[in-house]
Protein backbone atom coordinates (compact mmCIF):
# COMPACT_ATOMS: atom_id res chain seq x y z
CA UNK A 1 0.00 0.00 0.00
CA UNK A 2 1.35 3.43 -0.82
CA UNK A 3 2.14 5.59 2.19
CA UNK A 4 1.56 9.32 1.84
CA UNK A 5 4.86 10.91 0.85
CA UNK A 6 6.42 7.50 0.06
CA UNK A 7 6.91 6.42 -3.54
CA UNK A 8 4.50 3.64 -4.53
CA UNK A 9 6.71 0.64 -5.43
CA UNK A 10 4.26 -0.75 -7.98
CA UNK A 11 4.13 2.60 -9.77
CA UNK A 12 7.93 2.84 -9.60
CA UNK A 13 8.31 -0.54 -11.30
CA UNK A 14 5.81 0.42 -13.96
CA UNK A 15 7.61 3.69 -14.63
CA UNK A 16 10.96 1.91 -14.80
CA UNK A 17 9.57 -0.56 -17.32
CA UNK A 18 8.12 2.21 -19.45
CA UNK A 19 11.38 4.13 -19.33
CA UNK A 20 13.23 1.03 -20.46
CA UNK A 21 10.73 0.33 -23.21
CA UNK A 22 11.18 3.87 -24.43
CA UNK A 23 14.96 3.59 -24.47
CA UNK A 24 14.93 0.24 -26.28
CA UNK A 25 12.54 1.58 -28.92
CA UNK A 26 14.63 4.71 -29.32
CA UNK A 27 17.78 2.64 -29.78
CA UNK A 28 16.17 0.32 -32.32
CA UNK A 29 14.78 3.24 -34.30
CA UNK A 30 18.21 4.89 -34.28
CA UNK A 31 19.86 1.70 -35.54
CA UNK A 32 17.29 1.27 -38.26
CA UNK A 33 17.24 4.87 -39.49
CA UNK A 34 21.02 5.27 -39.52
CA UNK A 35 21.38 1.94 -41.31
CA UNK A 36 19.11 3.15 -44.09
CA UNK A 37 20.95 6.44 -44.38
CA UNK A 38 24.55 5.35 -44.01
CA UNK A 39 25.16 1.81 -45.13
CA UNK A 40 26.06 0.81 -48.68
CA UNK A 41 23.71 -2.02 -49.56
CA UNK A 42 25.95 -3.60 -52.16
CA UNK A 43 27.56 -5.67 -49.39
CA UNK A 44 30.89 -6.17 -51.07
CA UNK A 45 32.24 -7.41 -47.76
CA UNK A 46 31.32 -7.51 -44.08
CA UNK A 47 33.35 -4.48 -43.04
CA UNK A 48 32.21 -0.94 -42.34
CA UNK A 49 34.16 1.64 -44.33
CA UNK A 50 35.67 4.78 -42.77
CA UNK A 51 32.94 6.83 -44.42
CA UNK A 52 30.22 4.58 -43.06
CA UNK A 53 31.68 4.78 -39.56
CA UNK A 54 31.74 8.58 -39.65
CA UNK A 55 28.23 8.63 -41.01
CA UNK A 56 27.02 6.37 -38.21
CA UNK A 57 28.57 8.63 -35.56
CA UNK A 58 27.07 11.77 -37.02
CA UNK A 59 23.73 10.15 -37.69
CA UNK A 60 23.46 8.97 -34.07
CA UNK A 61 24.28 12.44 -32.82
CA UNK A 62 21.73 14.11 -35.09
CA UNK A 63 19.07 11.55 -34.29
CA UNK A 64 19.57 12.26 -30.61
CA UNK A 65 19.20 15.99 -31.21
CA UNK A 66 15.98 15.45 -33.15
CA UNK A 67 14.69 13.42 -30.21
CA UNK A 68 15.47 16.36 -27.92
CA UNK A 69 13.74 18.94 -30.10
CA UNK A 70 10.62 16.86 -30.58
CA UNK A 71 10.56 16.12 -26.86
CA UNK A 72 10.71 19.81 -26.03
CA UNK A 73 7.93 20.64 -28.46
CA UNK A 74 5.67 17.89 -27.15
CA UNK A 75 6.43 19.03 -23.61
CA UNK A 76 5.57 22.63 -24.47
CA UNK A 77 2.17 21.49 -25.70
CA UNK A 78 1.22 20.35 -22.24
CA UNK A 79 2.88 17.01 -21.66
CA UNK A 80 2.61 13.62 -23.27
CA UNK A 81 -0.72 11.83 -22.73
Amino acid at each position, binding site marked *: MAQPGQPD*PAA*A*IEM*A*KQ*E*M*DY*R*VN*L*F*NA*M*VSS*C*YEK*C*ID*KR*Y*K*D*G*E*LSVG*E*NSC*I*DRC*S*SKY*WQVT*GIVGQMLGAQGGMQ
Partner: protein
Amino acid sequence: MDPNLAAMQNLPQAQQQQLMQAIEQMQVRDSLRMYNSLVERCFRDCVSEFRSKDLNAGEEKCVQSCATKFMKHSARVGIRFGELSSEAESQMQAMMQQQQGGK
Protein backbone atom coordinates in the same frame (compact mmCIF):
# COMPACT_ATOMS: atom_id res chain seq x y z
CA MET B 1 26.93 4.48 -13.12
CA ASP B 2 23.89 4.12 -15.33
CA PRO B 3 21.25 6.31 -13.62
CA ASN B 4 18.61 3.65 -14.21
CA LEU B 5 20.70 1.11 -12.33
CA ALA B 6 21.19 3.54 -9.47
CA ALA B 7 17.45 4.19 -9.24
CA MET B 8 16.78 0.45 -9.38
CA GLN B 9 18.89 -0.23 -6.31
CA ASN B 10 16.63 2.02 -4.26
CA LEU B 11 13.76 -0.41 -4.69
CA PRO B 12 13.12 -3.20 -2.19
CA GLN B 13 14.55 -6.65 -2.95
CA ALA B 14 11.34 -8.23 -4.27
CA GLN B 15 10.80 -5.38 -6.70
CA GLN B 16 14.42 -5.52 -7.84
CA GLN B 17 13.99 -9.16 -8.76
CA GLN B 18 10.77 -8.40 -10.58
CA LEU B 19 12.52 -5.70 -12.54
CA MET B 20 15.47 -7.96 -13.37
CA GLN B 21 13.07 -10.57 -14.71
CA ALA B 22 11.24 -7.97 -16.75
CA ILE B 23 14.56 -6.78 -18.19
CA GLU B 24 15.53 -10.35 -19.08
CA GLN B 25 12.23 -10.97 -20.82
CA MET B 26 12.60 -7.76 -22.76
CA GLN B 27 16.10 -8.76 -23.84
CA VAL B 28 14.94 -12.16 -25.09
CA ARG B 29 12.03 -10.59 -26.93
CA ASP B 30 14.30 -7.96 -28.40
CA SER B 31 16.87 -10.54 -29.61
CA LEU B 32 14.17 -12.52 -31.36
CA ARG B 33 12.75 -9.38 -32.91
CA MET B 34 16.20 -8.34 -34.12
CA TYR B 35 16.85 -11.80 -35.56
CA ASN B 36 13.66 -11.70 -37.60
CA SER B 37 14.15 -8.17 -38.81
CA LEU B 38 17.74 -8.93 -39.82
CA VAL B 39 16.64 -11.96 -41.83
CA GLU B 40 14.01 -9.86 -43.57
CA ARG B 41 16.45 -7.05 -44.27
CA CYS B 42 19.15 -9.29 -45.75
CA PHE B 43 16.65 -11.27 -47.78
CA ARG B 44 15.20 -8.06 -49.18
CA ASP B 45 18.61 -6.60 -50.01
CA CYS B 46 20.30 -9.73 -51.36
CA VAL B 47 17.76 -12.05 -52.95
CA SER B 48 15.83 -10.98 -56.00
CA GLU B 49 15.81 -13.79 -58.53
CA PHE B 50 14.12 -17.15 -58.27
CA ARG B 51 15.46 -19.26 -61.11
CA SER B 52 16.55 -21.83 -58.54
CA LYS B 53 15.39 -22.97 -55.15
CA ASP B 54 18.88 -22.65 -53.67
CA LEU B 55 20.85 -19.51 -52.95
CA ASN B 56 23.69 -19.01 -55.39
CA ALA B 57 27.23 -18.20 -54.23
CA GLY B 58 26.74 -14.45 -54.71
CA GLU B 59 23.55 -14.37 -52.71
CA GLU B 60 25.11 -16.39 -49.91
CA LYS B 61 28.11 -14.10 -49.67
CA CYS B 62 25.77 -11.10 -49.78
CA VAL B 63 23.70 -12.41 -46.88
CA GLN B 64 26.82 -13.10 -44.82
CA SER B 65 28.16 -9.62 -45.48
CA CYS B 66 24.77 -8.08 -44.78
CA ALA B 67 24.43 -9.79 -41.41
CA THR B 68 28.01 -9.00 -40.39
CA LYS B 69 27.68 -5.38 -41.42
CA PHE B 70 24.43 -4.94 -39.57
CA MET B 71 25.82 -6.39 -36.36
CA LYS B 72 28.85 -4.10 -36.53
CA HIS B 73 26.63 -1.13 -37.31
CA SER B 74 24.34 -1.96 -34.41
CA ALA B 75 27.31 -2.26 -32.05
CA ARG B 76 28.68 1.11 -33.09
CA VAL B 77 25.32 2.82 -32.69
CA GLY B 78 25.13 1.17 -29.28
CA ILE B 79 28.39 2.80 -28.23
CA ARG B 80 27.30 6.24 -29.47
CA PHE B 81 23.89 5.82 -27.87
CA GLY B 82 25.55 5.12 -24.52
CA GLU B 83 27.80 8.17 -24.86
CA LEU B 84 24.95 10.49 -25.88
CA SER B 85 22.84 9.09 -23.10
CA SER B 86 25.43 9.69 -20.33
CA GLU B 87 26.21 13.12 -21.71
CA ALA B 88 22.54 14.10 -21.60
CA GLU B 89 22.23 12.72 -18.09
CA SER B 90 25.21 14.69 -16.75
CA GLN B 91 23.98 17.85 -18.47
CA MET B 92 20.65 17.44 -16.73
CA GLN B 93 22.33 16.87 -13.36
CA ALA B 94 24.49 19.97 -13.85
CA MET B 95 21.39 22.00 -14.69
CA MET B 96 19.55 20.71 -11.63
CA GLN B 97 22.50 21.54 -9.39
CA GLN B 98 22.63 25.05 -10.83
CA GLN B 99 18.93 25.54 -10.12
CA GLN B 100 19.33 24.33 -6.56
CA GLY B 101 22.41 26.50 -6.02
CA GLY B 102 20.51 29.59 -7.15
CA LYS B 103 17.90 29.35 -4.34
